[in-house]
């Protein structure tokens, strides 16, 4: 059975594996020696052991520290803290802008999402206007949440974390503001174009390429300051989050440019490019940003360096090499070259490696401190996101198997999986990151901490209902479609109750976003009682902030 094509594919695959490990080896002499110095770079000298959750008020922070059952040392190094304050201040305004845009698009995108969900079980609802038809409002939802919410929040996260991790100020912050303005102009124009019926017609790539130029120019204006900041760093070690964040930023820009090249792609080849992009925008943009965020926030909150630095490195490079090639599993059974689909299935299974590396590492880091999630809402979001990353990745690997894919392909099951990844994992991590970042960005505490808990539970229960409904409904739909004895319409009607439950889950998620964005507005407008009390975007005397930073 083994013909030459399979053999050559296998050989190429083994060769690339060997190359990958040689590559990792070359990056690091003494690969088997653990390096706590590199892992501790996120802490100021003397800070290890000290918990950190800016979303908590002072009393709750003390409870968190007490629960960590670890008496912190004499206190963190003042110089290190001062440089962290300066780093935070240099990025405050751009980060605030990106988070504000993200919140706007999150609300708009969720309303559009719930509308399209209801339309699937109420097909005669809101049909008189073209822009409200399912095919358009669904795409408005996708564009608003993927490009508007996740991308803006991810950019804000990158711009906030990098100066901290590199212990330097953000260079060229004004360019990132301009970049953000261009990107959001592009997103607004793209959403408008799609609603009017002007679309490039490929999933995840609907924004017309003429408008896409705004996104590319905007990303370029963010990449340049980021790279300048990188080469001006004051740390010796590049912490693993830096790898994830910088690589992701470069990847998404190239992905978008190649996929959008006008006049190049046609027919079946365009379909493979479409899914190369479609899966990579999750795999090489949302995922590395979120994983990089967890690698920073989780150890930082619990005050303990990441367990195995080498494991995190292995995770990064295996993700980089395997994830890029999995997109073909969206075309299993389609009119595309067989070798391509096989390659993508194999790499989809190889994705188990980075995911397991990440999970072992995080479990080891959290060991004995998992109970801190009861005190720290930020940690709760991060742990939820990390666990769902494991679940959705394993599910994705299984889904790529031909036997499973035969059932789930073309069904709502895939939609459930996509939301598990983009919401249960990525969005939850981004929520947690925003709760951590904003008190540092605005020098103001979250006014109503209970709303953070309310947001968490509404979102968690919402996505759980959403996922279970579509997973069960989609699986049954797939079985019905595969059974030639059952009419096609059976596969439609049997999904109705599940589609209605999906709307229930979606409504809870929307409610959680109203809580979140309302809380964000209250904070930005300086609501609430006693605060740390500095002017918007910083103070003339950063040293005076050290108290709030836990000296």
């Amino acid at each position, binding site marked *: 059975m083994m013909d030459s094509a399979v053999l050559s594919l296998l050989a190429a695959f083994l060769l690339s594996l060997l190359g990958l490990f040689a590559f990792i080896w070359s990056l690091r002499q003494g690969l088997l020696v653990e390096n706590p110095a590199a892992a501790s770079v996120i802490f100021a000298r003397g800070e290890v052991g000290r918990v950190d959750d800016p979303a908590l008020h002072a009393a709750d922070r003390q409870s968190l520290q007490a629960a960590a059952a670890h008496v912190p040392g004499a206190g963190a190094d003042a110089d290190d803290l001062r440089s962290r304050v300066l780093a935070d201040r240099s990025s405050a305004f751009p980060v605030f802008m990106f988070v504000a845009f993200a919140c706007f698009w999150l609300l708009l995108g969720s309303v559009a999402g719930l509308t399209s969900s209801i339309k699937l*079980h109420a097909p005669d609802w809101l049909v008189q*206007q073209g822009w409200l038809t399912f095919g*358009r409002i669904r795409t408005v939802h996708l564009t608003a949440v993927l490009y508007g919410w996740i991308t803006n929040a991810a950019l804000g996260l990158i711009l906030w974390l990098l100066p901290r991790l590199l212990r330097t100020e953000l260079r060229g912050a004004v360019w990132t503001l301009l970049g953000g303005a261009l990107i959001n102009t592009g997103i607004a124009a793209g959403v408008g174009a799609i609603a009017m019926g002007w679309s490039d017609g490929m999933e995840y790539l609907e924004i017309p390429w003429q408008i896409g130029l705004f996104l590319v120019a905007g990303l370029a204006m963010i990449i340049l300051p980021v790279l300048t900041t990188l080469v001006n760093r004051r740390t010796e070690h590049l912490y693993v989050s830096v790898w994830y964040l910088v690589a992701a930023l*470069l990847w998404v820009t190239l992905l978008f440019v190649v996929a959008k090249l006008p006049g190049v792609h*046609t*027919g079946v080849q365009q*379909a493979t490019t479409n899914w190369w992009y479609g899966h990579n925008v999750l795999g090489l943009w949302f995922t590395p940003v979120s994983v990089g965020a967890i690698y920073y926030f989780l150890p930082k909150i619990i005050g303990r360096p990441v367990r195995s630095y080498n494991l995190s490195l292995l995770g990064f490079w295996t993700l980089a090499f395997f994830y*890029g090639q999995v997109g073909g599993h969206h075309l299993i059974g389609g009119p595309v070259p067989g070798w391509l689909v096989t390659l993508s299935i194999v790499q989809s299974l190889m994705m188990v490696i980075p995911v397991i590396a990440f999970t072992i590492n995080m479990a080891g880091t959290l060991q004995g401190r998992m109970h801190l999630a009861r005190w720290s809402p930020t940690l709760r979001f991060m742990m939820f996101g990390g666990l769902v990353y494991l679940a959705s990745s394993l599910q994705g690997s299984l889904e790529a198997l031909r036997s499973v894919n035969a059932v789930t392909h073309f069904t709502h099951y895939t939609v459930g999986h996509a939301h598990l990844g983009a919401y249960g994992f990525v969005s939850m991590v981004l929520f947690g990151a925003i709760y951590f970042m904003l008190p540092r960005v605005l020098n103001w505490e979250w006014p109503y901490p209970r709303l953070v808990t309310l947001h968490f539970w509404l979102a968690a229960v919402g996505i759980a209902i959403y996922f279970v409904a579509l997973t069960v409904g989609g699986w049954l739909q797939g079985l019905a479609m595969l059974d030639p004895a059952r009419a096609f319409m059976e596969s439609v009607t049997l999904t109705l109750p599940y589609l209605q439950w999906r709307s229930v889950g979606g409504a809870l998620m929307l409610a959680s976003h109203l809580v979140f964005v309302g809380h964000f507005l209250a904070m930005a407008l300086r609501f609430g009682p006693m605060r740390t009390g500095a002017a918007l975007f910083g103070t003339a005397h950063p040293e005076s902030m050290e108290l709030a930073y836990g000296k």
Partner: protein
Amino acid sequence: MENETKLAAGAMVALGVATAALVVLPYLQVSDVPAPAKLKPYTASQLRGREVYVANGCVYCHSQQPRDRALGPDAQRGWGRASVPGDYVYDKPHLLGSMRTGPDLFNVGARQPGKDWHLGHLYQPRAYVRESIMPAYPFLFTVKDAGEAEREGEQPLALPPGFGPAEGQVVVPTPAALDLVKYLQALDHTYPVLPAPPQP
């Protein structure tokens, strides 16, 4: 590990490998496949109709890629033989689709050739398939006074009883609806092709 050049280079190599496999090689392999002899290029009105199909996101519920018998009963459902790369040479953007909330449409022109059926079904799908969850597209039609439509020489829809507009009024399709139906009727890939070479 201490070096941003390695980071950038490694990241680009990783993406380069993926791009070679999923974008460049398919480009070399299938971008110049010949069109099957019996596949006709789209006419101008069919192309306009295809734009209506794209604009309204039909692709999010309808695939255009019947699968092989080994993978599912697509052929038994009347959706046609498994498609081959040549079937798509005139398709830009591709509309392979990823969902079957509704049936595959690659050969809908062959199994549902009637213009009246398509127009009426777009106006109100539930007039033809009672349990359908396809959206109605009234914005692709105009409701007019019957006399006015007659004076203007427009052909009103013949809708099943109970689904028409009020007494004395008729539904007439817009040019966009007529183009869309022309495109749907052109979706006919029932011509024979040589079986695809065995794939590894």
